[in-house]
Each structure stands twice: as structure tokens, then as C-alpha cells.
């Protein structure tokens, strides 16, 4: 417990320092002027309240106070006028999470199975085929195979749409009336539409592009771990006491090789909230990654800062949980701590 508390404290400290650095760097950028008079008036009042004319550290104090007392992270001026960054971000989470969950659900079993298969067939042609494929998919940047799947499955074969379809179109395709779709879109409760079949079909290509890299990475990792375990002494002992190769592999080797793989998968599940900048850009997914790019292109500083901090938190929490889960999964590591 003491170890966990220490880790969490350290994490919060790191987060605080990164937040401070990012805040100062963002506030030092020149502020955008507003075109219309009414917008400029609103903005001036808001900035006055946030202490924009005071020293940066005082501004940071106000910023922190607003977060702790009112959960107020600033204002989006460009992306969704006058909405709070928290609201803007959480409205983009649904597509990102759904897309990435689909991708992980597909890629984790495939990746692990390929890795196991390659390890069992080590140095045979099956292993060489898988290892070559893994090498290619790990190396080639994901936007290139995004284009390849678009080219073949959309342009040549016409099986799937090139980009993700809009919720409105999906609703119409499901047989809802125009007014009903509009009502759902306005209510903000769009989860059902996101989970619908037409949306799923339009998500096939981005899910594919997201999966290739994960499958390849997992397969490579699993193969490396499993080959190491298969050559260890306890496997020899297992065979010596009369287990068949299959028995020894499933009962002893697989379990042990999963020790480093499971935390990796847990880490992947945490990072699904961050979304992929590239895939969301290419397939026009209105998700978190796209929001981050939008905030950069439109110079919506408060949103940019909030998304940056959000990314930092996800990264930090991910690392922490991975480290702690080693202890949960493997009793040897837990014992070593004490």
C-alpha cells in the first residue's frame, strides 16, 4: 500500500509540474483578436475575470482556483463558442472509445494467437511469414495502410464507405424519420446511434487501420515472451515429468508468458481514450484526436491546454496501472516488493 501511495503522490507531482509548464507556455502565446464587437466584449470580460493582464503566475493561481472550486477549465472560443473545454472533450469521447474498443476487441485475440502460433512454429516457414508481416506492419506508418485499405475496400471493391458516415445518415438508414434523428442529435444522447449497424459498417476501415499496428505489436511481443519461456528450465522439467508438449505449453508456458503481456493489454485499454490523431483525421472521425488537431489549427488555447492535460493524465495513469498490475498478476513481483 505504501508503495502505491508513493507512486500516486509522485504521479500527481509530475502532473502538477507538467500542467504548470504547459499553462505558462500556452499563456505566453499571443492571444487572438476577435472579429465581431459582441464577441470581443464577451471575451474581454471573461479574460478580465481570468486575470489576463496580471502576471502569468497569478493567472495560473486563478486557473487552479477555478478548477478546484468550479471545475472551470476555461472557454472554447473557436470550436464550440463559449462552451467549456470539458463539455467539448466529453462530447468527442464516444466515437473515439467505440472505435478503439472495436479495434482492441479484434486485435488482442488475433495478435496473441499469431504470436503463440509463431512461437510454437519457431524458425519454420509459418514463423517466417508471420515475423515478416509483423516487421512490415510495425514499421510502416499507420496512415499508409489507412490509404491502402481505403483504396482497395472503398475505391476498388466498394464494400465500405471511405470515411465514417454522419450520425444523421446512419439514423436515416436505420429507418428513423428526419425529425426523430434531429431530436436524438439535439438531445445529445447519441450512444445508440453510434452503436448502430450502419455506423459499424462505416467504422470497419478505420478499425482495420487501427488494428494492424496493435496486432503486429502484440504478436511480436507474445512471440518473444513465449519463445523465452519455452526454452526455460521449468519447461524441461514439465516435459521430464511426463507432460506432453501440448500440456506443458498450455499449462505452464502460456501462463508465464502472459505476465508481461497482460499489463501491456491493460495499457492499451487505458490509452483508447486518447484516440489516434492520424486515423481520426483520415477517416473524419469526430473524436478526441480530431479535437486536438482542431484546437491546434484554430488556436483554441483553452481546449488545447485541456486536451494536453487530459493526454498527460492518460499517459501517467496508464504507466501507473501497468506498473501496479505487474504486482497483481505475478505473485513473484509482489513478494519482491516487501
Amino acid at each position, binding site marked *: 500500500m505504501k508503495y502505491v501511495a508513493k507512486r500516486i503522490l509522485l504521479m500527481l507531482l509530475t502532473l502538477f509540474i507538467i500542467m504548470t509548464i504547459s499553462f505558462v507556455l500556452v499563456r505566453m502565446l499571443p492571444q487572438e483578436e476577435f472579429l465581431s464587437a459582441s464577441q470581443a466584449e464577451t471575451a474581454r470580460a471573461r479574460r478580465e475575470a481570468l486575470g489576463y493582464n496580471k502576471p502569468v503566475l497569478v493567472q495560473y493561481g486563478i486557473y487552479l482556483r477555478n478548477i478546484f472550486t468550479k471545475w472551470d477549465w476555461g472557454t472554447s472560443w473557436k470550436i464550440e463558442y463559449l462552451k467549456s473545454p470539458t463539455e467539448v472533450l466529453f462530447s468527442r469521447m464516444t466515437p473515439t472509445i467505440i472505435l478503439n474498443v472495436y479495434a482492441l476487441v479484434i486485435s488482442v485475440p488475433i495478435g496473441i494467437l499469431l504470436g503463440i502460433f509463431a512461437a510454437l512454429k519457431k524458425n519454420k516457414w509459418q514463423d517466417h511469414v508471420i515475423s515478416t508481416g509483423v516487421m512490415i506492419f510495425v514499421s*510502416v*506508418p499507420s496512415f499508409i495502410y489507412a490509404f491502402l485499405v*481505403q*483504396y482497395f475496400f472503398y475505391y476498388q471493391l466498394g464494400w465500405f464507405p471511405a470515411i465514417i458516415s454522419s450520425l444523421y445518415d446512419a439514423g436515416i438508414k436505420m429507418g428513423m424519420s428526419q425529425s426523430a434523428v434531429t431530436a436524438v442529435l439535439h438531445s445529445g444522447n447519441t450512444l445508440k446511434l453510434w452503436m448502430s449497424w450502419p455506423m459499424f459498417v462505416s467504422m470497419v476501415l478505420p478499425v482495420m487501420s487501427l488494428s494492424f499496428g496493435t496486432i503486429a505489436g502484440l504478436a511480436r511481443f507474445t512471440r518473444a515472451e513465449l519463445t523465452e519461456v519455452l526454452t526455460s528450465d521449468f519447461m524441461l522439467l514439465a516435459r521430464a515429468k511426463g507432460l506432453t508438449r501440448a500440456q506443458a505449453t498450455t499449462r505452464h508456458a502460456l501462463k508465464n508468458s502472459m505476465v508481461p503481456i497482460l499489463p501491456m493489454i491493460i495499457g492499451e485499454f487505458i490509452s483508447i481514450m486518447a484516440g489516434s490523431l492520424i486515423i481520426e483525421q483520415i477517416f473524419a472521425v469526430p473524436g478526441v484526436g480530431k479535437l486536438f488537431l482542431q484546437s491546434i489549427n484554430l488556436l483554441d488555447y483553452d481546449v488545447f491546454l485541456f486536451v494536453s492535460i487530459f493526454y498527460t493524465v492518460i499517459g501517467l495513469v496508464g504507466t501507473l496501472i501497468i506498473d501496479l498490475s505487474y504486482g497483481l498478476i505475478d505473485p513473484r513481483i509482489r513478494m519482491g516488493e516487501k
Partner: protein
Amino acid sequence: MKASDIKNIPAEKLRLANRGELHDTKFDTKPIGYFRDAWIRFRKNRASVTAAIIILIIMAFSVITPLVSPYKINFSVTSYSKKVPKSRVLSKIGIFNGQTKRERNDNAFVNTIGIGVGAADMDGRGATWEQGMENEYNPAKHIGDSYTKEGKRYHQLKVDVYLEEGFRYFQVEDDEYFKILEWQEKTGKQVIYPMVDTSSEYCYDSMNANYWYKTRPGRIEPISDTGYSVRDLKFDTDNLKDSEPLESNYLYDKDGNPKFYQNTGSTAKKIRVLYYNYYQYLYGFEPDYLFGTDANGYDICIRLAGGIRLSLTIAIIVSAINFIIGGIYGAIEGYFGGVADMLMERVSDVLANIPFMVVVTLFQLHYANKVGPVISLLFAFVSVGWISTASRVRTQFYRFKNSEYVFAARTLGASNTRLMFAHIFPNSLGTIITSSVLVIPGVINSESVLSFLGIMSLNGDQGTSLGTMIASAQPSFTQFPHMIFFPAFVLSLMMISFNLFGNGLRDAFNPSLRGVED
């Protein structure tokens, strides 16, 4: 004898115990050092050696191309944008011949072949279909089958997209006009063709110089001497050679000779040029785009070479700086340990946890206007890139600092710096070199991703990056796959090769793998 006497034995009382040969035999084989051993094992790894050769070829391509190519990185001809690859050398074996498949209805088909007929009609006295189809400037290089759909006739043909531009109208000054004439005289290639009577009612499109023949007034169908149009089947588009010839719509002077220009001012002339030859007059060489042209009419080949150079330069600089900063930082951390190590670890921990995209964006927003996007990208890479190198060096130092040879050196009075950099560092060099090489594909990837996403914008005359090329080809990549294929292919090839190369190095520098692979 007292112990102190041992020190004071006179020299003459000492003599060698063994005056003869030493019993140790000298090794017959040559000693193999660490790096030599690594090199021997690296050479056995065929994939890595191939990867290294591919990297060398790509590097050579990026350096040699600007030397041999007639194009410059800022050379753009907007008329020749999005053109497919054409190389005079490679077209002899049937690839990169600048041809694309087209489907044309009757009128467009006549117009395409009409370019060839117009080009054959050098003096304005008229040319037959046969002459036109055999003319070297005829864009229709191969005429395939035709079919009827919904009552209309369609023709499949392969056209040379560079010749397809056909004729253009240009306004030129008099001295320019005479220069073109002089150039024609010298090279024997005709640029200026008879001027079309654009005000005539038979001219379908007064802006498009490919309508040099008479059409039905206000209509697109050509008319022939006998007044028949395509509709009346006098033009049998499936068998043009036996059809009536197109009737030209030129300007004539008083004597009935075709005019080659139209005066538009006291010293300016409007002329009709064959664009393919006009291009040669302007630039001095034939259009010869090995990888085609992009959406702005830049030569993809030379831009690609520029992009590779940029990627590799950034990657190698970043890798070298990481090596130095990370090496020193990690060495201090690992060697001294304790409080210094803890504090320095905190610092690198904070830096490592800032998302890289955020770091890059902040650097771009702060410095792109002051020092340019490439330099600010370099700053971003360097500011956080050294951390992984430092942690590797730190681990190596922890491993070696308590070895016997370090104690021995310390006993002999070596200073801390000497111990760190002359004794421990060379032992961890293999790991560090490997990690520095593996930094390169990471940097290449990040750079292409960033320029692809537009976070770092690099376009225009100064140069480009692979990511920008891919991003600008994206909107029309299904129609013009060549624009995206070459940069994407080279990028993938570089990534795969550097990863393979790095993995090979890692295995070669890892002595515990010795003999395992064999």
C-alpha cells in the same frame, strides 16, 4: 630477514628465475575485438545487410537526383500538374510512358485525335486523319475497342497525358515571338501553329486552342467540307482514316495564306502554340517526369529526394544530439547514483511524460515564425528525445561501475571523468549505438506524421517532406495514385530498412546471442 629488508634487496642479488623461453605459446589466430565480433555477426544477418544496402541506395538517390535531374526543387509548371510518370528511357520497356486510359464519346474522341491532326498540319494547308494519327504529337497512343451505351458511342483509348494538353493560346511580345521563330529554326521543332479565327461562328470554344477545326455553329460537333457532322455518320469514329478530313478554321491573310499570329497591340501578338514543344522552348528539355508531377506541377522525383534528405538529416542530427546529451546525462546519473540520480530521474520523468504531440505543437507555435518549422521541430525532438538514451546509458553504468576493472582503474588513480568516459562508456557503446540507430526510424515516422497532420507545415518552393507530399496527394489519391505511391513507398521502405538494420545491430552487439542463431 625482516619485512622491511625485502624492499632494500640490492639489484645484483636479483636474477630471473627462468632465463629460457616463456612457456606460454602465442595465439596463432588473430584476436577478435568487440566491434570486430559484432561486425562478423552483423554480416551473417542477411536481412540486416540487405536493409543497410537499401538505406545506402535511398541515400544515394536523394543525393544524386538533384545533380542529374534537369528540375529544381522549386520548378513547377502548373499546366503539367497531376501528370503520371513519363520517362523516355523506361517507356521503351513499356513502363512509365506517361499514358493513361481514357473513355471518350464521339466528339471528345475527335477532339483528342484532332490534336494530332492539328500538329500534323504544320503549314495550315490541311492534314488527313491518317497523317494526324501517325503524327508523333498525337496524344492517342493506342485506340482500343468502342461500345455503345444509351445510344452514344464511347471509345476506349490510351493517351499520353503530356501531349493531351495539345495547343494553347498565348500573348507574346514581338521579340519573344522572333525568339521562338529562331528556336524553331534551330531545333526543327514547330512551336507556333496557324492561328485560329476565334471570332468565327464555327469556333466552338475561343479559349481552347484545340478547337482549331470548324464545328457546327454553337455546337461541339465538327463539320467537314461537305457539311456533315458526326451525327450524320460522315465521321465514322470507328474508322476515322476513311472519314472526311476536319475542316480547319484558321485566320488567313489577303493572299489566302494562313496567318501564324494575330496582332493584339502594337508590339503584342496572340499565337497558338503546341504546348509540348513550347515547354521545350521555355525550359530547354523535354517533359520527362520519372515519378510524375504533383498537384502543383512540381516534379515528384526531385521533391521526393528533397523530402528524403530532410527526413534523414533531421533524424541523424537528432540521433547524434541525443547520443551526446543522453550519454552525458545518463553517465552522470548512473555513475554517481544517490541523490543526484534521484533528482535527475525526476527531471527526465517530467519531460518524458509530456505527450510528444503537445511538445511539438508548443515548439511550433512559439518558434515556427522565428526560426522556421524545421528548426523548431528539431528543438522539439531534442528536448525530449534524449531521455530514452539517457536511461539506457544509466542502466549500463549501473551494470559496469562496480566491475573489477573499474576498481583497478580507480586504484591506479583514474579520475571520475576518465573512469566514466574512457573505461565504462566504451563498454556500453554497443547498446547506445543500437538505441541511437533505432531513434532514426522513430524520428522519420514522427516527422512524416507531423507534416502529414499539418502540425508542421512544409510546402512551397523551399522544400518539402514526405508527410507533406502524402498529405497533399490525399484528396485525389484514388484518381492519381502515383502522387501518393512514390512518397508512401519510399517512406515505408526507409522505415522497414532502418528497423531491420537496427535490430541486426542490436543482435550483433549482444554477445549473449553469440552462437545462438547458427
